[in-house]
């Protein structure tokens, strides 16, 4: 996979804006638009782990969809390895982009097709993107890589727990050896025990495989534990960004401070 990076930046977004048409409140009303994303710049350095935090409606999921070419911006540009991303292009001419990216979603119960075996699920991106090589061998290899048993390929999603399913979803996302793995709240639907395990797995993928991570999360603890860069979003704009420890420990924006002050911490003596 030969995607060069320009000055170490793998994914670059400039002036990203996305407006959606709002439903008309009255008949014959002139069109109204809501701005989900408003002039956002973002750089994801190769090999880094970038956390995008914000609450509902902050635009974090919209931003990620634009970065992955799943949606077209109203204004602005996205580049992956210096090459412009055109989400409106035909599927075949986006293969280079799909090969370089992998995505994990929040709910592993919804993201895996129940009628397909685990092996078929993981192999799907391999044949869909025309990746050469022994697919069966790659499926077994990647299953072991995410901490599952290679023989599980023959089984079906319903036979697995939530944490195991999320491992399967991660296996599918990395099967074609992407450069960047994007997670949209990949830990939010999981129990705490499982959450710690999947966090470990993501960290390992980054450290051992050099995978670049972009993690969208409302869970600041996850970002603090996994990411070295953080972007704080509110109402479609970036309110603050920088190294994770700096932003989280010395927040400058009033909103970041409010957000951080709202997070419950384990305090044995708080509620007496």
């Amino acid at each position, binding site marked *: 996979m030969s995607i060069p990076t320009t000055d170490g930046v793998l994914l670059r977004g400039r002036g990203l804006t996305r407006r959606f048409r709002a439903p008309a409140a009255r008949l014959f009303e002139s069109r109204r638009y809501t701005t989900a994303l408003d002039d956002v710049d973002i750089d994801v350095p190769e090999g880094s782990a970038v956390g995008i935090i914000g609450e509902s409606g902050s635009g974090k999921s919209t931003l990620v969809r634009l970065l992955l070419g799943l949606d077209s911006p109203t204004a602005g540009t996205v580049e992956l390895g210096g090459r412009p991303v055109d989400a409106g292009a035909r599927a075949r001419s986006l293969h280079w982009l799909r090969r370089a990216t992998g995505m994990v979603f929040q709910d592993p119960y919804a993201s895996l097709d129940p009628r397909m075996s685990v092996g078929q699920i993981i192999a799907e991106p391999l044949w869909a993107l025309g990746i050469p090589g022994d697919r069966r061998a790659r499926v077994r290899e990647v299953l072991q890589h995410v901490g599952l048993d290679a023989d599980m390929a023959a089984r079906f999603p319903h036979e697995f727990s939530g944490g195991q399913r999320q491992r399967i979803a991660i296996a599918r996302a990395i099967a074609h050896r992407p450069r960047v793995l994007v997670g949209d709240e990949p830990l939010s639907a999981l129990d*705490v025990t499982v*959450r710690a395990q999947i966090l470990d797995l993501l960290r390992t993928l980054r450290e051992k495989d050099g995978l670049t991570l972009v993690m969208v999360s*409302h*869970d600041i603890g996850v970002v*603090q534990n996994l990411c070295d860069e953080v972007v704080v979003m509110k109402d479609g704009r970036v309110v603050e960004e920088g190294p994770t*420890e700096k932003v989280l420990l010395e927040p400058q924006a009033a909103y970041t401070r409010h957000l*951080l002050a709202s997070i419950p911490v384990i*305090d044995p*003596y708080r*509620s007496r």
Partner: protein
Amino acid sequence: MSLEVQDLVVEIGGRRVVDGVSFAVPDGARVGLIGESGSGKSLTALAVLGLLPDGATAQGSIRWNGRELIGLSDRKLAELRGDEIGIVFQEPRTALNPIRTVGRQIAESIRIHQRLPRRAAMERAVAEAARVRLPDPEQIVRRYPHQLSGGQRQRVAIAMALACRPRLLIADEPTTALDVTIQAEILELLHSLVADDGMSLVFITHDLAVLSQIATDAVVLEDGRVVEHGALAQLLTAPASPVTQGLLRDATATLWRPGGIS
């Protein structure tokens, strides 16, 4: 006014999902039921409310104020619910009726238990909306649930649960579906309402950090059994059961630490 659960067993299709759970909620105590999915925490609460799903059976003893609830008729249980025992669920979107104004829903929850003319009930609804700190209560009671934010909807659900001044509030993951800044507001609201009224609280959650914001005591559940219970401070500082230790360790692994990761 105390709740005593003794050897509660809940079976669904012959499978024991709650297996001999005992705990007490003394008057004014705020008790957390904590455990992972499938630990039996929600079913324990539903058994107390007499709201177990079809096909589930409860045995053992649930005494509310000395009165045995297991075996009580549905009508008698329905009288208790909303009047002496209030309920708040996780998802306010599904707990509210989409085609009725929120004022009417709050008024209804009063009129079920108290003979009150419609107009007087609506006035009470406005007062209750103000009590849960909804903005502009006179206006907001005329709105429909979809016109409110998630946090406002949960405030409406709390207003409905507390409208008859119950002595016990059962809250099942009431902040799980909310954004973190809204969660902080709702926890603060619940805490002050419960403390002001000297109400008892059963708070169900999988989140130790959330629990530590509101509970005085906790019952740790795993696979339908109580593995540890006691004062929350004790459980968090010196957990005796490996299950509690594990929950604490795993929660800490992904927890936000204001002081940074050392």
